[in-house]
C-alpha cells in the first residue's frame, strides 16, 4: 500500500499518516502516547506551579506592577551572622513610608502565626486567619466586595474596631452576607463588620486572610520614635510592605528612593553598632515567588538553571524511548520512503516530513498531558498546590482562568516541539539516508 503525497493539503496527509501509525502498531503507539503525555504532564505541573505564583490572580491582580519588602535584615558590626524578621513600625515608615514615585504604599501584618477566635452572639466560636492591615491595602489589592466598604485612613488613625470578613466567615457566623454593622468578637475584642468580600485563595499569600482589621487596633501596635531603636531587636516588628507602582518602568526610580532611605537610616544607626542590609529589596513578584530564605543571597539565574536542567531531564528520558520507537516504525516504511526518494523528494524534504508527522503525534499526546494537568490542578488543588511553611486555614483555590492562561498553552507547544525534535531528528535523518535501490528492492527487510 503506497500513498502518494503529491496532494496540496499536506496537513490532512499528516493526520492520515498519524492514524496509519496507530492502526499499524497499536501497542507501540499507545506506549508512545502514554510516555509523551506523562512527560508533558509533569513538565506542565512544574510550569503551572510557577505560573500560579506569578500571573495576575485576584485579588493580587496587579502583580506585574507591584514590589514587595517583607523582611528586614540587620547585621551587627562585631558578630558574624545576621538577624532577620519583619519590619518594626518605625523602621518600616522610615524606609518605605515617604516614597513619592509609587501610586500607593501599604503596610500589613507579615505573618499570621496564630489564628484568632471568632464568634458572634449565638454562634460557636471558631478559628480564622486574621490579618492586620492599613487602609491602603484595599487600594493595592482587588478584593471583590459583596457588601459594605473597607475601612479608610481615618478609621485606621482613630483605631476604629471594624473588620472586613470573608464570605465563608460571614456565613458561618450569621448565615448571610448582608451583615454590615453586625458585631463580632475577635480574640475577646468587639469589632463591627464593615464589609464582606469573596473568599481569598491562599495562593495569593500577601492578600490572603479570612478577616482583615486595622493593625492600629492590635495589641502589639506601638508608635515608635528614634529613641525606641536601641538595638537590632527593636528595629524588627510584625509588618511588611507592598508597593503599587504606576507603571513597571517606575521600578528603578522606586528602588533608588528606597536605597537612599536605607543609606540615611544606616548613617543614623552607626552609633548603635549595626546596619541594615537591603539585600536588593523591594522584590518583584517573580523574584519573591521563588526566593527561599529571607537573609541569604539568591540568584534568579541559578534558579532558572536548575529548573531548566530538571525540564531537560524530563524531556530527554522519554525522548530516548520515543526515538527508538520512531526508528522501528520508520523501518516499516522503508519501501515507501524509497519510492518517494526515487520520485525526487529530497533528503531535506524527507526529514522535514517525518518530523512534522511526528510533531502532530507528539502534539496530540501533549494535549492529553496538559488536560490531565489542568484537571488535576483544578479538582485536586489542595494536594497540587500544597506548600510547606503555610499553616493557613483557607484553601489554595484556583480558577480555570488562572490555570489556562495563554502562557500555559505556549509552553505546552514549546515543550512538545522540543520533545519531538529530540525524539524524531535522528530517526528521520537515518531514514532519509536510505539507499533507494535497496529500499525498493526490499533488501532491508
Amino acid at each position, binding site marked *: 500500500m503506497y500513498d502518494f503525497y503529491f496532494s496540496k493539503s499536506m496537513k490532512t496527509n499528516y493526520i492520515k499518516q498519524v492514524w496509519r501509525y496507530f492502526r499499524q502498531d497499536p501497542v507501540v503507539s499507545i506506549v508512545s502516547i502514554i510516555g509523551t503525555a506523562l512527560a508533558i504532564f509533569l513538565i506542565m505541573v512544574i510550569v503551572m506551579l510557577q505560573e500560579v505564583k506569578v500571573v495576575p490572580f485576584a485579588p493580587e491582580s496587579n502583580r506585574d506592577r507591584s514590589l514587595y519588602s517583607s523582611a528586614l535584615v540587620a547585621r551587627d558590626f562585631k558578630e558574624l551572622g545576621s538577624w532577620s524578621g519583619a519590619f518594626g513600625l518605625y523602621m518600616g515608615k522610615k524606609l518605605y513610608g515617604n516614597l513619592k514615585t509609587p501610586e500607593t504604599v501599604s503596610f500589613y501584618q507579615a505573618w499570621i502565626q496564630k489564628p484568632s477566635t471568632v464568634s458572634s452572639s449565638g454562634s460557636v466560636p471558631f*478559628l480564622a486567619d486574621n490579618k492586620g492591615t492599613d487602609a491602603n491595602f484595599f487600594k493595592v489589592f482587588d478584593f471583590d466586595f459583596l457588601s459594605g466598604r473597607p475601612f479608610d485612613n481615618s478609621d485606621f488613625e482613630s483605631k476604629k474596631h471594624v473588620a472586613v470578613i470573608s464570605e465563608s466567615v460571614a456565613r458561618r457566623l450569621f448565615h448571610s452576607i448582608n451583615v454590615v454593622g453586625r458585631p463580632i468578637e475577635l*480574640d475577646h475584642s468587639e469589632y463591627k463588620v464593615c464589609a464582606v468580600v469573596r473568599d481569598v485563595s491562599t495562593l495569593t499569600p500577601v492578600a490572603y486572610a479570612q478577616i482583615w482589621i486595622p493593625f492600629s487596633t492590635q495589641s502589639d501596635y506601638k508608635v515608635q520614635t528614634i529613641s525606641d531603636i536601641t538595638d537590632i531587636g527593636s528595629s524588627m516588628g510584625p509588618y511588611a510592605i507592598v508597593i503599587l507602582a504606576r507603571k513597571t518602568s517606575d521600578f528603578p526610580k522606586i528602588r533608588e528612593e528606597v536605597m537612599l532611605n536605607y543609606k540615611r537610616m544606616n548613617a543614623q544607626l552607626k552609633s548603635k553598632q549595626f546596619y541594615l542590609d537591603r539585600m536588593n529589596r523591594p522584590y518583584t513578584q517573580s523574584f519573591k515567588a521563588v526566593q527561599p530564605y529571607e537573609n541569604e543571597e539568591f540568584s534568579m539565574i541559578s534558579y532558572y538553571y536548575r529548573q531548566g536542567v530538571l525540564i531537560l531531564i*524530563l524531556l530527554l528520558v522519554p525522548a530516548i524511548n520515543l526515538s527508538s520507537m520512531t526508528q522501528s516504525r520508520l523501518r516499516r516504511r522503508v519501501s515507501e520512503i524509497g519510492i518517494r526518494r526515487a520520485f525526487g523528494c529530497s533528503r531535506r524534504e524527507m526529514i522535514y516530513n517525518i518530523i512534522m508527522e511526528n510533531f502532530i503525534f507528539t502534539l496530540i499526546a501533549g494535549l492529553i498531558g496538559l488536560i490531565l494537568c489542568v484537571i488535576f490542578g483544578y479538582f485536586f488543588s489542595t494536594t497540587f498546590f500544597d506548600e510547606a511553611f503555610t499553616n493557613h486555614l483557607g484553601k489554595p483555590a484556583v480558577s480555570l482562568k488562572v490555570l489556562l492562561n495563554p502562557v500555559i498553552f505556549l509552553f505546552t507547544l514549546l515543550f512538545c516541539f522540543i520533545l519531538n525534535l529530540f525524539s524524531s531528528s535522528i530517526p528521520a535523518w537515518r531514514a532519509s539516508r536510505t539507499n533507494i535501490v535497496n529500499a525498493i528492492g526490499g533488501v532491508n527487510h
Partner: protein
Amino acid sequence: MYKKLFKQIRNEWRNNLWLGTELLFVSVLLWFLVDFLYVNISVYFQPLGFDVSHCYNVNLKWLAKGDPKYIPSDTIYQKQFDELVDRLRRRPDVEEVCISIYSYPYNPSNSWGELCFGKKGEIECNNVCRRYITPEFFKVFRFQGAKGETPEQLASIFASDPNGIIASDNCLPHKYHRKLTTLVGLPFMFMVNDTTDLHRLLAVYVPVRYSEFDDGYSQRSVTIHYDKGEYGSDTNVSLRVKDNMDVDFVNRIMKTADKQLRVGNMFVSSVVSFADIRNENLKFKRLEIRNYSIGIAFLLLNIFLGLLGTFWFRLQQRRSEIALQKALGSTKRNVFLRSIVEGLLILTIATIPAIIVDWNMAYAHLNAWMGGTTLAAGRFIATIFITWLLIALMIVLGTWLPARKAMRIQPAEALHED
C-alpha cells in the same frame, strides 16, 4: 543457549547500544533519587532524643490598649506568665509546664550561636542550637542525661545554677568526640574572645535532633536559662499532659480557658498538640520526599514503556528465528526467559559505567549528605544495588508482555510467512 545470547547481543550491538545508553542515563538519575530517599529514610530512624507525646503548646494573646476590657496596670509579662504556669500546673490532668523561647521541638524559629571551650590558643568553638528554657523543659520533653540522668534529675541540676548550661554530648566533636561528660563542671563561653562571660557546664544530655529528618551527626544543642526579664509576646508555654489523661485535652482546656486561664490582659487563644506542630514542621521534607518519589516513578515508568516498545519490535522481527528455535525443541518457557535474561544482561553491562558516573557524582558532593559525607561504602553499595533491582524489575515487567506473545508463536505459521 545462553552462550549464543552473548553472541546475539554483540551482533545486534547497534540496537543494544541505544537501549544500553538509555539504561545508563536512567540508572544514573535513578541512583541520585534513590540515594536521597535512602539517606532520608535512614536518618528518620535515628534516635530522636526527645519525646513530644502528650505535649501541647498554649498560644497566648493580649488585649489591645483601646479595648474596653483592657487593664492598664497589668503590663508585666513575668507576673502574667508565672501566674498562668501556676494555674496550668494545678490542673489534675497536667503533669508539667515549662516556659521557653524559640526552643520547643519542631519550632519554625530557632537561634544558633557559638559554644566555645578551652584555654587561650586551643579554644574549640562550634555552632550549636541555643535553647532558652526553664528547668521544667527537661521534664516536659524528656531529655535524657548522657550519664543516665532522668529528666527530673536534669531539671534539678539545671535549676541549681541560674548561670549554668547543659549541653548535648556531641557539642565539641573534634577534640571531645562524644566525651563532653568529662568537661562537666568546667566553664564554657558563647563567643571566642569573650572570656568574661563564663557558664559552667552542669551536665550533659544525650544528643537531641531538631526533627526526624535532621541528621544526628550535626545536631548539637545547648540549653540556657531563659531570663525572666526577657519574657514577651513571643514567649512559649508548653505542657505535658499525664499519659492516662490525654483524652480530648484541647476541647476540655479551651472550655475552661475563658474562666480559669485569663491573667490580666493575657488570654489563651488556642492550644495545639505537638502532633500537629510536628506535622507542620515535617511538611517541607514530606513534600520533598513526595516529589523525589514521583521522579523515581517517572523514571521507572519510562523504562517500563521503553522496554515494552523495544522488545515488542525486537521479538516481532525475530519471529522466524524464535519459530525455528521452537521447532528444534526449545520450550515456551525458554523463549520467555531468554528475552528477560537479554534485558538483564544489557542492564548489568550498562551498570558498570553507571557506577563510575555515580561514584564521581558522590565524590563531587552532588548528592545528599549523611554522617558528614556523601560517599560511604555501605550506603553506596546499597543504593547501587537497589537501583539495579528497581530497573531489573521494570525490565522483567516490560519484557513480559512481548515475551508472552513470542511464546505463543506457532513455528509452522511463522516460518511459512517468511
